[in-house]
């Protein structure tokens, strides 16, 4: 079973939830940190690095001797990574998503691919938890291929995915083909606004989902009414407890420093299994 922790808004507690659910599960599982632009799950887990691999994407290069400047490649490229002035086209490799389409449509067979490094995937063993996370190289703008590489590390019965924030391509790449999405939010206008956007995304993808409200407080007249209205399962509420923030700031998992919260995370996992 693959469970993704996502949110529209950043900083709602995706990593906190993913890490603590992973530790509270007390069963061998994989945790995949797919927030490759700012991976941080490894900061909360102590373990040994067991693997490190370089991830590349194929990018086109043009054989100037064969190219007749027809511009088919430029017309085809949906990412505007190729411009043609009627001579040999110019390729912006940093904008290329590596789809290989230009190579296929080139009538002169003048395009071949070379591998361009975009980042690394590291794997750490931390007790029962095996954590894999991607680190995008500085200056690389396109995260989804690296996210897909991190997801290749999925293995075993239970896989937890820590998704990047937002609602754009990296989020889609992270939550696609999961069995359940946990949308983490907070009872603020910003939290609610971005929750709505995230709900639109997971509904469009057709993945079952529920919500967790972090920093929950009495008298929430924002998120709870919205969840009721939209018939979205409220899976758990994490109280607005200053100690959680203090523990987080020292890089310790909540379940270790504040064991009274362990039950909250184990119940959440049970609830997800029931809902999915």
């Amino acid at each position, binding site marked *: 079973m693959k469970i993704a922790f996502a949110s529209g808004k950043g900083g709602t507690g995706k990593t906190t939830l993913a890490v603590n659910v992973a530790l509270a599960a007390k069963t061998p599982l994989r945790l995949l940190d797919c927030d490759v632009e700012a991976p941080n799950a490894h900061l909360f887990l102590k373990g040994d690095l067991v693997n490190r691999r370089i991830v590349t994407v194929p990018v086109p290069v043009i054989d100037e001797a064969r190219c007749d400047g027809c511009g088919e490649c*430029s017309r085809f490229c949906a*990412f*505007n*990574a190729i*411009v*043609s*002035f*009627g001579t040999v086209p*110019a390729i*912006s490799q940093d*904008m290329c998503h590596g789809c290989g389409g230009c190579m296929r449509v080139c009538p002169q067979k003048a395009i071949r691919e070379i591998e361009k490094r975009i980042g690394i995937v590291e794997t750490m063993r931390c007790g029962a938890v095996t954590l894999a996370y991607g680190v995008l190289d500085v200056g690389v*703008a396109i995260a989804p291929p690296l996210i897909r590489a991190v997801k290749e590390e999925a293995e075993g019965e239970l896989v937890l995915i820590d998704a990047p924030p937002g609602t754009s391509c990296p989020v889609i790449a992270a939550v696609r083909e999961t069995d359940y999405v946990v949308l983490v939010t907070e009872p603020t206008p910003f939290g609610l606004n971005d929750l709505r956007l995230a709900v639109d995304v997971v509904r469009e993808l057709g993945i079952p989902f529920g919500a967790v409200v972090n920093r929950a407080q009495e008298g929430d007249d924002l998120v709870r009414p919205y969840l009721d209205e939209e018939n979205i399962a409220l899976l758990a509420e994490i109280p607005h407890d200053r100690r959680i923030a203090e523990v987080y700031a020292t890089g310790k998992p909540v379940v270790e420093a504040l064991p009274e919260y362990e039950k909250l995370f184990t119940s959440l996992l049970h609830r997800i299994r029931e809902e999915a």
Partner: protein
Amino acid sequence: MKIAFTVSDGADMSARMDSRFGRAAKFLIYDTETKAFSVIDNAYAQAGQGAGLKAAETVVKAGAVVLVTGDCGPKAFQALKNAGVKVYSAKDVSVAGALEAFNEAKLAEIASA
């Protein structure tokens, strides 16, 4: 010689210049010999990425050898340079005003981006 201007609204010489290149709404192509002009919609103004490169492609295909815009990003600038297009900066002015300034050699050429 053809000059491309970036236009935010309007479709004649009184149109306001758009200070952006890749995200400009339209391009006005002015022919200095015939004094005629044509207006091209920027089909890539809302592109997710690569609007500047596509804009460079559009003005080069329209035959422009000079571009007058506000600012120009590094990728578009390089593409224009490769195609031999000279880029000049004009802001907060109509196309007619920018053309007059260009003819009087009062516009600054953008030499790098």
